[in-house]
């Protein structure tokens, strides 16, 4: 349900546009007007002229203020060049940056918000928050590369991050039937979009645009949709049922599919009547290893991703007893673990680089090692060895890494005798690349370095205005969550293109900041920090899982474990909001803060201020929150880096100068199911 800028009061729909902090004196907290209708559909139509009117009012006021400020600013600047200005918390990115996990996520999923829903047992709500933002919660909850976890604030106080990824899986596993919450495609708007490749990027574009009335045609060379999620991720990590459910969920919104139809010519596709074309073909080619006897041994030398694909479509069902996997990435980990399940008895992973430099995710390496697969590092493959025309082994050279001043690594041979390893099959998993031989070079798409198309980083548009790229197809291999993020942006661009709008004018994110105060010392979030260590996800018995490719290794958290793990979340989206005018400088917040983030000191330049804090703030990735000057001529400076969001500053503040306010940040998308909405009651959750 789309209620952007809308809210309900006494059953009547109103329009509301937030006013930036700097203009609050002039325009008030927000601009609002009643639409005098009880009907949401009508309100949705009526809102836009009013929203535009409000926005222009804000813009005029802002321009006026800036003009006035410019004159006084130059005077003030001269006098206070070594003073930090008051922090502008109305900038959506200020508080967003404090929510480390959400900020690190390419799709900016509101992580703490869905974790709170999990701890309250609202799994379906948690799922929908995810579905809105990352489209594949069940898939990502099992396979995501989790850029959010290393960013988790827990790691700053020497603890392991919250198991964000596996909690996402909990939302999927326990969500129940959510079909009635999914949107329905409206009447077609007459615009037709082609999507090439049915992977996560294209499917995201499809989800975002089909809900707006676009007609979408999805071309896929394989017989089923899913892209690398189906072909390259083995079923023991991602069960087919999960994949099918989330992929079909999108297709069933009304996306036309053309399976088994590989696009062989962009030129001829352009001749069809598509208003835009999105290329989400991934990086489908696996790198090969051209060393001695490659050609002669080809029967038993396989390219990793192709081999995984043939397993996914059940063309391959067995492998030799002794298997060597070359490469140190996640594909190598999937290859070695798949080999075990196809009956191999001796599987080794051989890596050129040192163990520490391996590209695979830490947990993927751990899972492989837990299945007792040896990982041998610093071995460079030299040749394949054949006997009577059949592959029998490989020869390696031992190397050691040396790093120069700039940290650049070179592998220096140790001079030891070559190492021979026996094998029946070799899986080459040493990288992937794109191949665009199907795109003619004379149709207006410019190609640049590495023979890759030139794609705009913001709009995802190629040099041909109708053609967009996203996912691995745009800039080479990344992860699913990046493909999703690309898909959202490409959908915005395609929508703008079809509406004849400027593509570079990107929509603002939606933000909301609401106090969590319920009583004198009561908050509507749990501020008592859990001291539990990260909970392990239970695994299936290896006796069973190693024998069957389709038995999922991870069992996922049950409800109790999920609750305990969810409680470890520090609620970093509950912000410490400071109101200068209320502060009496009693020091209570300084004394209670468990991580010594709050300071009352004389203002100075940022560099000096960072040094002078109670504990110097050395992490420049996180900002300082600087207040206006207080009665004693000092300023309040808070180091956002170490705050654990326990809310004790607000609890011990006698005047409520500190308040704990939940900050909701929704990255702009063409489709929004309104995370901020109480879906059951059709009302904003935090109003």
């Amino acid at each position, binding site marked *: 349900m789309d209620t952007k800028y809308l809210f309900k009061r006494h059953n009547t729909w109103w329009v509301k546009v937030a006013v930036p902090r700097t203009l609050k004196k002039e325009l008030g907290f927000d601009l609002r007007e009643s639409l005098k209708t009880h009907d949401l559909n009508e309100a949705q139509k009526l809102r836009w002229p009013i929203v535009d009117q409000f926005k222009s009012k804000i813009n005029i006021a802002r321009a006026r203020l800036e003009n006035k400020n410019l004159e006084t600013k130059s005077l003030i600047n001269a006098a206070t060049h070594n003073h930090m200005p008051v922090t502008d918390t109305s900038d959506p990115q200020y508080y967003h940056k404090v929510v480390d996990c959400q900020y690190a996520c390419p799709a900016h999923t509101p992580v703490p918000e869905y974790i709170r829903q999990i701890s309250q047992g609202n799994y379906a709500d948690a799922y929908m928050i995810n579905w809105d933002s990352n489209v594949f919660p069940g898939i990502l909850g099992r396979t995501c590369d989790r850029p959010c976890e290393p960013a988790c604030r827990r790691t700053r*106080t020497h603890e392991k991050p919250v198991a964000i990824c596996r909690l996402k899986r909990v939302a999927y596993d326990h969500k129940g039937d959510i079909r009635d919450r999914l949107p329905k495609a409206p009447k077609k708007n007459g615009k037709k979009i082609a999507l090439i490749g049915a992977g996560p990027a294209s499917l995201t574009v499809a989800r975002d645009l089909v809900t707006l009335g676009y007609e979408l045609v999805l071309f896929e060379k394989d017989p089923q949709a899913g892209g690398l999620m189906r072909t390259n991720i083995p079923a023991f990590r991602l069960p087919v049922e999960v994949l099918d459910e989330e992929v079909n969920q999108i297709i069933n919104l009304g996306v036309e599919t053309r399976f088994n139809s590989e696009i062989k010519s962009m030129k001829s596709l352009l001749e069809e009547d598509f208003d835009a074309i999105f290329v989400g073909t991934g990086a489908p080619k696996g790198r090969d290893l051209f060393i001695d006897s490659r050609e002669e041994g080809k029967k038993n030398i396989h390219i990793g991703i192709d081999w995984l694909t043939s397993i996914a479509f059940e063309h391959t069902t067995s492998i030799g007893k002794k298997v060597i996997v070359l490469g140190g990435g996640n594909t190598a980990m999937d290859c070695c673990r798949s080999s075990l399940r196809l009956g191999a008895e001796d599987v080794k992973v051989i890596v050129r680089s040192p163990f520490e430099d391996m590209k695979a995710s830490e947990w993927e390496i751990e899972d492989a090692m837990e299945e007792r697969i040896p990982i041998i590092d610093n071995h460079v493959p030299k040749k394949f060895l054949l006997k009577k025309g059949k592959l029998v082994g490989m020869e390696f050279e031992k190397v050691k890494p040396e790093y120069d001043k700039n940290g650049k690594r070179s592998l220096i041979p140790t001079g030891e005798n070559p190492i021979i390893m026996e094998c029946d099959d070799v899986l080459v998993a040493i990288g992937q690349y794109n191949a665009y031989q199907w795109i003619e070079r004379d149709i207006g798409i410019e190609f640049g370095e590495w023979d890759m198309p030139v794609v705009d980083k913001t709009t995802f548009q190629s040099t041909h205005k109708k053609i967009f790229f996203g996912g691995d197809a745009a800039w080479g291999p990344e992860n699913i969550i990046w493909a999703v993020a690309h898909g959202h942006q490409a959908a915005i661009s395609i929508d703008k293109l079809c509406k004849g709008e400027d593509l570079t004018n990107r929509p603002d994110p939606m933000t909301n900041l609401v106090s969590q105060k319920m009583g004198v010392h009561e908050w509507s979030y749990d501020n008592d920090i859990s001291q539990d260590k990260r909970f392990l996800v239970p695994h299936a018995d290896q006796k069973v899982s190693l024998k069957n490719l389709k038995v999922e290794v991870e069992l996922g958290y049950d409800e109790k474990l999920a609750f305990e793990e969810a409680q470890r979340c520090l609620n970093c989206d509950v912000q410490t909001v400071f109101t200068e005018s209320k502060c009496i400088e009693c020091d209570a917040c300084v004394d209670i803060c468990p991580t010594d983030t709050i300071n009352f000191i004389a203002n100075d330049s940022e560099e000096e201020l960072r040094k002078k804090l109670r504990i110097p703030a050395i992490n420049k990735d996180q900002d300082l929150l600087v207040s206006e000057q207080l009665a004693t001529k000092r300023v309040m400076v808070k180091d956002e880096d170490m705050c654990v969001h326990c809310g004790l500053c607000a609890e011990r503040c006698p005047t409520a100068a500190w308040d704990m306010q939940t900050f909701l940040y929704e990255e702009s998308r063409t489709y929004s199911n309104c995370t901020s909405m109480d879906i059951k009651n059709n009302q904003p959750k935090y109003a």
Partner: protein
Amino acid sequence: MTYITKPVNHHPRLKINKLGLTRRDYEGPVSTLCAGCGHDSISAAIVEACFQLNIAAHQVAKLSGIGCSSKTPGYFLKQSHGFNSVHGRMPSIATGANLANHELTYLGVSGDGDTASIGMGQFVHAVRRQLNVVYIIENNGTYGLTKGQFSATSDIESKSKYGEDNLFPAIDLAGMAIHLGASFVARSFSGDKEQLVPLMKAALSHKGFSLIDVISPCVTFNNHKNSTKSYDYIREHNDSVASMTDFIPIGNTITGSYKQGKNLDIPLHDGSILSLQKISKNYNPENKIEAIKKIQQSEQQGKVLTGLLYINPKAKDLKETLDIVDTPLNKLVEKDLCPGKEKINQINSSLK
């Protein structure tokens, strides 16, 4: 009241002292006092001072009477000894404990009611005897625990929160303590830790009766416009004897920035130094008469004089006056206390 415990999570770069402890190790449970109470800042200053002086918490005894102030020892130094005595009777307990074991550091925490009213008789004698204790008065000029009546330290021009006039003049506990022979007397403000922490460290290093009269606003009953002990009033009327007070621990040399002339460095008995920078003209805190004069002058000008008011680093404490053995009395065993028949005979014969 805060119901949750303060998280154990702390800043990874928190300083560690010579005992391998962080400041957090010197804390106690979360205070149950009103949010914003000056007393909590004083507790934090005690924590900071003990941390910086590398004091082992189990070598400290916290003693108090009754009142908001006297509850605070529950909120700092959780590993220390403690005794929450009868109202105004903390000095007796401190005297007894001190005589039994003079090796501990004694920290008496009291309020204006506990000291200037019900406990006045006890207080004056502890001062007079130079009991070796750091006596902190958390002075808010009101009976906060009984909803804001005037206390004996409320200034006459002050009004209650409900608008009544105060009929009686205030007792100046700092001036009185100097009169009665205290060898370390300071006044400070809970909202000024830069001054309070060094004073506290000096008091903890001083031998003899150390009084710190800390003005500590009662955020609930005495932080209003007509109060003379509100945060705003004290900030406006604070008249510090020195622009900066600094405590230099034993063995640390004075750095070049401490210029002679305007500054005064007072060596304490244990070798540490209390350095007062840019001290007021013609003021000598080692001169009793000048100190009393200065306090009176400030009062007349409507100012609150803070900082180190008087010090006599060479004064004798109670133990020396009574010439008590170096072994703490609680460690003397029967063998030490009953020297035996032969020794008695020896003494007796010497008297013949």
